[in-house]
């Protein structure tokens, strides 16, 4: 028990240190960009102004409001203080909207798109990979090149291909948005149907790309395991094939679980391409516009969410591994 406590204690300390460093970087990095977002807001307001001193007044007003005229260290402490109050600040690019408001209205779309896509891609990919390793012969000869091909198509390429093929040419899928362009959200079967049909292309554009990578990884892990000594030994003992495959699959799964956990951790930022190409509402497109608009508070908030999710997931993984994999436990308790 003492070993566990020491192990968790160490993990928690590292977790906290990483968190502090990450928050610091989240704050500083966006602010190192060479542009001045306050000038950008002023520009939007001031175009067409003929009174030349007016633009300067507008600029000073916003500087004051956003606190960008204060020293950066002071800005950081204000940022941290607000974080503790759950206040992520006001967005520059969508001023005067609150960052928390922007994120809460888009994060559910992203999770609803990404989470099932990651799970489905992962399940299908691993299944195909394991089958390819086990069946070999013709199946493997087809599957491996197809998987390699799919996993090497960049996400935007896949999204554009699906868009052009199914939406523009065949016209069997909608081109953009989260629901029909002529609908207003409501509780009706038609609306749900519309949401589901708009869901297909972005969903499959993510699934198809991830299947390939997962399948290739699972296949090689399985082949490695199939040739392991314990498999040969089990065969000698006359254990049924199905039982052996079960063992092999479980062992080959371990690294794949890490991969799954990491994809879930980073999913908030991961759907960027699909969201942009299909004009799908979500955090990915929000992040993209925040970055191109130099919107520090929004960038910091979205990257903070990603950081936190990755940290929490990897922390949980460490803990779970400690329990489920005796080899890891032994190594870490030493």
């Amino acid at each position, binding site marked *: 028990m003492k070993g566990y406590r020491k192990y968790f204690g160490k993990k928690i300390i590292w977790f906290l240190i990483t968190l502090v460093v990450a928050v610091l970087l989240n704050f500083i990095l966006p602010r190192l960009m060479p542009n001045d977002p306050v*000038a950008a807001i*002023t520009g939007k307001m001031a175009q067409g102004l*003929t009174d*030349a001193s007016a633009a300067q007044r507008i600029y000073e007003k916003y500087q004051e409001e956003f606190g960008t005229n204060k020293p950066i260290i002071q800005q950081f402490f204000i940022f941290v203080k607000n974080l503790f109050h759950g206040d992520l600040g006001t967005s520059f690019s969508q001023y005067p909207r609150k960052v928390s408001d922007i994120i809460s209205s888009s994060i559910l779309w992203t999770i609803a798109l990404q989470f099932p896509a990651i799970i*489905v891609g992962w399940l299908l990919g691993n299944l195909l990979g394991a089958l390819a390793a086990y069946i070999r012969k013709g199946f493997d000869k087809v599957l491996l090149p197809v998987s390699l091909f799919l996993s090497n198509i960049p996400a935007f390429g896949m999204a554009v291909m699906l868009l052009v093929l199914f939406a523009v040419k065949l016209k069997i899928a909608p081109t953009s948005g989260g*629901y029909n362009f002529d*609908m207003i959200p409501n509780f*009706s079967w038609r609306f749900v149907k519309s949401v589901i049909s708009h*869901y297909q292309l972005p969903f499959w554009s993510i699934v198809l790309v991830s299947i390939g990578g997962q399948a290739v990884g699972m296949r090689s892990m399985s082949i490695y395991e199939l040739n392991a000594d314990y498999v040969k030994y089990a065969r000698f003992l006359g254990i049924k094939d199905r039982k052996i495959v079960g063992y092999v699959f479980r062992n080959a799964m371990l690294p794949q679980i890490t991969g799954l956990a990491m994809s879930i951790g980073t999913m908030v930022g991961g759907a960027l391409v699909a969201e942009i190409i299909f004009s799908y509402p979500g955090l990915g497109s929000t992040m993209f516009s925040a970055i191109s608009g130099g919107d520090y508070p929004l960038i910091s908030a979205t990257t903070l969410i990603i950081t936190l999710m990755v940290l929490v997931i990897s922390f949980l993984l460490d803990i779970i591994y400690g329990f489920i994999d005796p080899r890891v436990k032994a190594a870490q308790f030493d």
Partner: protein
Amino acid sequence: MKKLIALVLSSAMVLTGALSVSAAEVTELPREETLYFGGQQWGTVNSYNPIGTNQNNAMATTAQLLGSRTLMFETLYMYNFLDGSLTPLLADGDYSWNDDLTELTIKLKDAAKWSDGTDVTSQDVIRTFDIGVEIGNNTGTGYGAYIDSIEAVDDKTFVIKAAVTEDGNPVNPLKVNDFLGGVFIAQAAWIDAVVERNGGDATAILNDAAEDVVWSGPYTKYFDDDQKVVLVRDDNYWGQDASMWGKLPVPKYIAHAIYADNAATEVAFKAGEIDVDQQFLPNIQNTWLEEGLPISTYMEEAPYGVCLTMPTAWYNMNNPILAENTALRKAIAIAVDYDTIIANAMTNQSPSFADVPRSLMNPTEGEQALYDHDAVADLQFAGNDIDGANALLDEAGILDSDGDGWREIDGNKISLNAVCPNGWTDWMAAMEVVAAAGKNIGVEITTLFPEWDTVQTVFTNPNQTEYDIFMWSPDGAGPSMPWGRIRQFLDGDLVGIENNWTGNWGQYSNERATEIVQQIPLTSDPEELKALYTEAIQIYLTEVPSFSLMYRPAVFHAVNESVWTNFPEDGDGRNIPPADCTDGYGIAALYDLELVG
């Protein structure tokens, strides 16, 4: 497993959809009652506040010189960029200036009413201006320097008193004209309520979401979320009175889906999910010639739209080589192949400089008639004149003395950069043509494409030395044009202004030109004006402080006629500008729309 996944999927989706459900009664907008827009709204709308700033609500609160968007809130007059006229909206009949150009009297229409049924009165106009000055919104910052006060004569008549200089002359009567077509009038009683609930705090008033706003226009808010904004017609709209339109606008709903980018908007436009698109589509004629789509533009032939502005390459006079060598400035300008720019970057959606010779005027007939073309004919250049440019440089003693192919000044090789924002592909193409012209005449010009936010931070800084030649557009149209644009090109008083969004970004200084800029607003005699405009153009073409690269519409206006038709067209006799059926007098189009079939 599949069932489980399907269940997870659909419940997640329903949950998501449920979160954005609003109180709107209609769940599907009838296609034949809805006019869809594209290219205007790029993010979730943040308010419906006509006296706020930071309005991203494009359909409801766009106030602009070119003609404000009067769907929900209304201006006194509607600007028409086709002929520069102001058509009365809330105002009744023409406005009248006194002889000194210090007082402008306007009457309001008797029929003009707010959505709560009360009259639009002089007090509303006065309160709109006063609150603007108090809280520093766009009305206050934009007009506070030109309007001293607005005073009521009676409930429906008021006088705008122009700000005057020490010698009693008005500061700028043209800017008072801008107020007429540009500023949304808000209800005094509603303004008082907003001020009260925000405790008089200026920032809070500017950012007020205005859920309870009172409007006077034909449409009002209906629904908005992350994906769209919908306005609905107000069937009690005062404008159906015979003294205004005599009827209601045809579409019941005005909708704008929020697309991620131009490409997504283009796909939706071609699919017929957008009726009116405000977006530059390269080779737009191919949509009807080759793809056979029911898409059309204001004009059937090139340039397809009404060009109002001219994206321009500005020389940075903080660079002594450019400031001191007029011959170098002119040589680069006459060497540039403008026909290539217009054919490639603009896909011919711009008249050429042979069709519309360069000046300080936009290519509309109205502005072109304002100056003496013959007087500046000798100074004109249509581009791609490499020999002329080389001769000019040789004559000025700017030579390639070390034989490396590049000319030198004081023994140093001339090396300049040409800058525009990254991703603005038509502008980037234009800058490449400028660089190529440099190569042809032995002047090294390298292109540089930083992100937009960086570009604007640099070029609005009056002391910048980072960019030598950079692209930006002067203003297109408005009641104070062409004065406003001439000022942007030539006003020496703008040199050294911090955060300079106003004009003269190249920091060019010429005493006579600055004088002309000051004289124009105070001159009303057409002949005198013509002489001033012509002289300004002479200075501009002689000194070449900047050079325009193409003409360009201020708004793009393309329509997909799969559902609606009878959009404004060139020569249809209606004089409705192609302003997306919403801006200034362009809104008149909404009253004439018809369903296809």
